């Protein structure tokens, strides 16, 4: 059985493709976008998130950790991240959920079992979306899940940066009904500079998929001062207009909801990013529109990307817009 590492599975996901979907967030990404709001999906290894405000100072974690990762000095919890191996034994006894291990190993069959729990709701358009992180960073696991879903007749979508050799992408083509791909910025060097990875492979793969007639949704997370200049968006739109199978081009405003996660992971950042104004986004959308290119802001008429899709009060959707 093929297994891989995920952060979590989100049922009733309504912003990660058409219809009601189940989104599987795979852990690990080769890019390091500084605005990423899912920093817990970057590392391919399990990690410990520490939400200090939830701690009730019970000190159960200190007793549990053999490596001395947790100490209580003067009633204050001190976490030594450098000693942590992400085993999660401390999190098991932290009922206050101040310590949360992120990253669990699942087999493709286990993932499928959860995916199928919502199968009755997938009509008429829903299904499964593999997201992350970067699903293609775990190609065998991704393929195994997609094959199982295909066998069950579940609609499949994948959210990917597609910055992988075609060799990695090709085996998945027939297993994916909808590719949802980010183009963060058109200029190769800016892209390389910001994300650590060139966008050339992404663009080549998009051309290849387009030539094969695969339905595509292309998205740009729009960050004020980074990629929201009209000429930057126009460059992407011009390029997309040359393709034949782009169903939709989405402008997704940056949102700062991942800020707390950085702190919980002991990471710095993100920098002081902000979203463009709604008016500016509307202007960009109008500017990007081409005769053969449907452009939407936040995937719809409203601010979907900043709204949760589940029961009110549930955690905000972890829509993958920055991988």
């Amino acid at each position, binding site marked *: 059985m093929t297994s891989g590492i995920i952060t979590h599975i989100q049922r009733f996901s309504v912003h990660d493709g058409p219809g*009601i979907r189940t989104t599987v967030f795979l852990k690990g990404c080769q890019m390091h976008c500084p605005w990423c709001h899912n920093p817990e999906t970057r590392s391919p290894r399990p990690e410990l998130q520490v939400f200090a405000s939830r701690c009730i100072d019970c000190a159960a974690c200190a007793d549990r950790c053999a490596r001395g990762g947790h100490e209580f000095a003067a009633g204050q919890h001190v976490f030594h991240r450098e000693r942590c191996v992400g085993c999660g034994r401390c999190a098991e006894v932290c009922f206050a959920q101040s310590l949360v291990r992120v990253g669990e190993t699942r087999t493709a069959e286990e993932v499928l079992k*959860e995916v199928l729990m919502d199968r009755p709701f997938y009509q008429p358009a829903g299904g499964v979306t593999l997201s992350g992180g970067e699903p293609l960073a775990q190609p065998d696991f991704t393929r195994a899940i997609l094959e199982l879903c295909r066998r069950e007749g579940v609609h499949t979508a994948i959210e990917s940066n597609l910055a992988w050799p075609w060799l990695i992408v090709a085996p998945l083509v027939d297993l994916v009904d909808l590719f949802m791909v980010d183009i963060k910025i058109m200029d190769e060097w800016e892209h390389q500079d910001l994300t650590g990875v060139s966008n050339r492979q992404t663009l080549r793969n998009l051309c290849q998929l387009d030539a094969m007639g695969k339905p595509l949704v292309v998205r740009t997370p729009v960050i004020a001062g980074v990629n929201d200049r009209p000429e930057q968006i126009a460059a992407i739109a011009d390029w997309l207009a040359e393709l034949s199978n782009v169903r939709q081009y989405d402008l997704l405003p940056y949102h700062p909801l991942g800020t707390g996660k950085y702190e919980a992971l002991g990471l710095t950042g993100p920098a002081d990013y902000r979203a463009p104004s709604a008016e500016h986004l509307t202007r960009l959308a109008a500017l990007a529109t081409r005769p053969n290119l449907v452009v939407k802001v936040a995937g719809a008429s409203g601010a979907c990307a900043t709204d949760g*899709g589940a029961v*009110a*009060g*549930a955690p905000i959707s972890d829509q993958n817009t920055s991988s």
Partner: protein
Amino acid sequence: MASLVQDGIDYETRLRHLRAKKEAQTQAKLRLAGSMNEDDYGQVLPPEGFPWQPPANHPNGSFYGLDGWSKAFCSLMQCHPVYVDPMDALAGRYMFLLNRIRKCNWPPEFDYAELKPEQEKYGIISGIGNDAHFAPDFRIGLELGWGGLLEKVRRCRSQHGPDKAAFFQAEEDVIVAIQGWIARTAAAIEEAEASQTDPVLRENLREMAEVNRWLIDGAPRTFREACQWIAWFNMASRTYNRDGAGGQLDELLRPYYERDRAEGRIDDEEAIFILACLLLNDTQYYQLGGPDAQGRDQTSPISFLILEAAHRLKATCNLTIRVHDGLDRRLLRKGVQYLLEDRKAWPRFSGDKALVEGFMRNGYSAELARQRIAVGCNWMALPGLEYTMNDTVKINVAKVFTVAFEEMMREDATPGIEPLWRRFEEHLRRAVLCTARGIDFQLDHQHLNEPELILNLLSHGPIERGLNVTNGGVDLYNMCVDGAGLATVADSFAALARRVEEQQQLTWSEIAEHLRNNYQGPGGERVRLMMRTAPRYGAGDSLGDHWALQISRLLTRLVTERPTPGGRRMIPGWFSWADTLRLGKQVGATPDGRRAAEPISHGANPQPGFRADGAATAMVRAIAAIQPGYGNTAPVQLELDPGVANCDDAVDMVASLITTHFDLGGTLFNINIVDAEKVLAAHKDPSQFPDLVVRVTGFTAYFATLSPEFRQLVVDRMVRA
């Protein structure tokens, strides 16, 4: 009949005026009452200093029985202020709820002291002394009119002996009193017409007067007359005892609409305006669509017009769309569209398949089951054929659980899940029996306490037999028994099974000690969180789901395995109304991590935080799985983020959620589209959000009218899941 279309004042202007007036009336009620933890209804305040007081016929200052009720009602009708608004299509508003004016709602001589210890022990809401909560058949009234009803009463009286004279006299008196109220209103309309200078409004008043003059005696002939007749019945019935059951409104009005349209008396714009006035007049529960007795869909153009009227009205509303295989999908989509667009928590949706199949398990035919419709918070009822006590009888299973737990800890040398379950089963059995005896007591005495003099008129049997509906007047007695606190108990069992028995994180004695201490003291909070984070009902294939199913099956078996000692059938459901607060105060700390006196769980819903992703699909599946399955409801109460409404395919997604729930066995689906920030802001300063409407439970209400405690309940459910 002349058209209401006008050049100067259009329907939109008139609706705006009426909506603003209603909001002002609601604010006035709020100033007087402080808060209103219930449906808005359509009640308005009487003029300040209105002197009427009900005549008493009992030494305790209250009034009871045929004589007491008919005299009190007739006395009020003789002087009830008339209400005419030239902008409105319909006349009248009601201003009193007689059953709330009464000093004491149960005659002290009918003593049920022997039931009280167990009622208290198990947190039973017995329903004794509760009125209405079943459905009238409006077709009877629409066919006969008040004059025809009076003739029917007199004819039936002549067929019975003098022993029934008091019953028939009381029925006659209330009809004549209602006719008097309408006649006085008609005169006031004519007076208003005479002084009205605006030609459009004068024409409206002329027509309104004509309609009401006719309706004093006559059966409605036109669409406007039918709507006005329904409004009069609602107002009279509300005045009498707050009855809030509606009916299959589209099908009731369809013949009038079709005739008026065919004869050119009305157009759709006028029909929509009149319907909006009817919905404004009262927040009665109406069903739309769904099958007729033979299974044919009842959706018609008028179904859409009713939705449109509610959409334009933008006030509190209680419309339910009955979803079945043959439903016109356009009606479902239109309903979902307005739910998402208006965010006023209507319509609701009921699931025909499970309701029909479930009711048939009681031995009834499919034809009958299809006619059993949604007419109240959680009510299902056969209009005019059945007495139900819907939503008035509840067992607090969380209280039953604590009784079982404490007894086990006192008496069992080796506590455990198995002995706890055995004791829970035994105490629930006793609670059901006590409940059943309470139902019998109510049915044996209620006619002497509070005869249903208004609802009898639109029932099949009471007038013909000279018997009150509670006392043999109708053929069918299917008594509603709802459990409350399902998730609290399921999560408690799950937490004990996981943390105490399986993981041995603490002993039975330790958890018992923590419960006694209300999770206070050393380690208490950690234990509370430990119990709270055990796998919950709603998580999907979890320990909590397993226990919820067990508990629901148990309640279902105990309620259905035998009738009451008096031979009445009982039908189980899960519904707590907004009693989660009151019932919670009866219950000490529970092993699910709930502290003493905190609210118990809501209806059939999982508890907030049931899954990390809060997935609506998981909730909907869980609730579909625990349905008792005998034709009563265990509703979904879902709070959806407005982000869903903003998606391109939002209508399809929400429709899929609803229809899939019903495919899986669900019965009733309530949805709020809530903006968490707005609700929080409104909680802080309700006066800034006078038009914010929420579905509290089965009913909708203006958020600003709720007490702080009730608002908190809604906030917790919506925002702090």
